[in-house]
């Protein structure tokens, strides 16, 4: 273990760490620093897998995973508001059974940085190369973990980060180079795979209907409209956010002539990340919507419209 990376205390935590924690930077090339936080397994560190965790975005810090998902601590909101939270041990931390690296990637995300801002213009391929470089250098810093089974895990846009990184890892093996990483497999949660399928086609509408968020009548109407568009294999649906907490589904029968739409659907007050949960921040009042122009511009687009407000927010009676 290199010097100066052991985490000895954390503000907000009263009590002992459940296992060793290490964190710091790896300079993957000149003036390009990636930040990691490494949590050693609470079970059998020498045998348990090493898992690299990546949040998505692109641009999301993996500290979201550490703080809000499966890190070693639960964070109790600070009181008064804005003060430091109190940390408690998380009984469902993934470090219960694995050694886990939270990596801020690509450079420019979270604590990772470069003094040269041009290095923040980056894409999938360079991210995969950089993360691979990080891993090789990381295992040189932590050689006692090099023989552990290694997995990559993440969610959302990490559905792109993970397969591209994994392919870079196995490419070395295919090239006949002695494997530097004992790679075994990967996990992807709610991951992006094919943008056309994930965002632009009828799977979203199937989901909305299956979850009871749109009526049978509207669903059937959409199907008919789709057929009328002469595009039976692939319906061109678009989901876009026209304002915070407001989602617009538009069907474009012929994208070439830029003539939306047979269809628009507005879902107000919806938490699209978890459809039955409220949004953390409350929806803005309609008056604000009108001021920014989004709401007033809507009717010209809309022929059929259904509004499904969340009842908990008291919007049902105020809806139009």
């Amino acid at each position, binding site marked *: 273990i290199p010097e100066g*990376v052991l*985490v000895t*205390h*954390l*503000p907000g935590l009263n009590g002992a760490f459940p296992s060793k924690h290490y964190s*710091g*930077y790896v300079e993957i090339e000149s003036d390009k620093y990636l930040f990691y*936080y490494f949590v050693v397994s609470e079970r059998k560190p020498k045998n*348990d897998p090493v*898992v690299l965790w990546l949040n998505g*975005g*692109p641009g999301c*810090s993996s*500290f979201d995973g550490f*703080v*809000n*998902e*499966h890190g070693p601590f639960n*964070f109790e*909101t*600070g009181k008064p508001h804005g*003060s430091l939270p109190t940390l408690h041990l998380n009984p*469902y931390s*993934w470090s219960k*059974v*694995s050694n886990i690296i939270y990596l801020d990637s690509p450079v420019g995300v979270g*604590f990772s940085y470069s003094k040269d801002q041009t290095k*923040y213009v*980056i*894409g*999938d391929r360079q991210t995969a190369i950089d993360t691979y470089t990080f891993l090789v250098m990381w295992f040189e810093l932590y050689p006692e973990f090099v023989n552990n089974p290694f997995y990559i895990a993440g969610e*959302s846009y990490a559905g792109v980060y993970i*397969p*591209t990184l*994994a392919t870079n890892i*196995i490419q070395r093996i295919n090239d006949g180079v002695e494997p530097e990483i004992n*790679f*075994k*497999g*990967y*996990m*992807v*949660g*709610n991951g992006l*795979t*094919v943008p056309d*399928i*994930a965002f632009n086609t009828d799977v*979203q509408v199937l989901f909305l209907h299956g*979850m009871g968020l749109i009526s049978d009548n509207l669903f059937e109407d959409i199907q008919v409209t789709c057929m009328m568009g002469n595009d039976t294999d692939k319906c061109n649906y678009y989901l876009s956010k026209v304002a*915070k907490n407001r989602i617009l589904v538009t069907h474009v029968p012929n994208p070439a002539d830029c003539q939306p739409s047979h269809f628009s659907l507005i879902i107000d007050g919806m*938490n*699209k*990340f*978890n*459809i*039955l*949960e409220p949004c*953390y*921040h409350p929806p803005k009042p309609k008056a604000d919507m009108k001021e920014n122009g989004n709401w007033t511009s809507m009717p010209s687009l809309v022929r059929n419209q259904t509004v499904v407000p969340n009842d908990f927010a008291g919007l049902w009676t105020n809806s139009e």
Partner: protein
Amino acid sequence: GVDDCLNDEVATTWLNNELVRQAIHAEPVDMIGPWVIISENILHNYQKDAGSMIPYHTKLTTAGYRALIFSGDHDMVVPFTGTQRWIKSLGYEIVDEWRQWTVNEQVAGILQEYDHELTFLTIKGAGHRVPNSKPKEALHFYTRWLDREP
């Protein structure tokens, strides 16, 4: 930027405290700026240049690497309907048909296993960030998959 539906306040408060940054060996705010949950600079300039991931999944799984694809079934951002569709498009043989999986005798979701050690698993009632909304169930499937338990 940060979606209104997400809670980033606790993380933002904690990770921008200088004592916390010192403790975790992160550079100070005046050197690299404040920590934000999503970097808009990256988000808006990022080049999505890798194309579809389906050829990557095919290459990896046919080369013998294990894959667990999981979906919180209440997520509308990347809904399980799309994930189910692309997995089906791989054309792999099903070796374990749709069945429920349970935690403490409660149904926690459904799963289907395919040839080439590919598993598709849903988590009932979970959102986009599965371990955030269903932490117990998430640790359960994570552990069993890593340990090669059924």
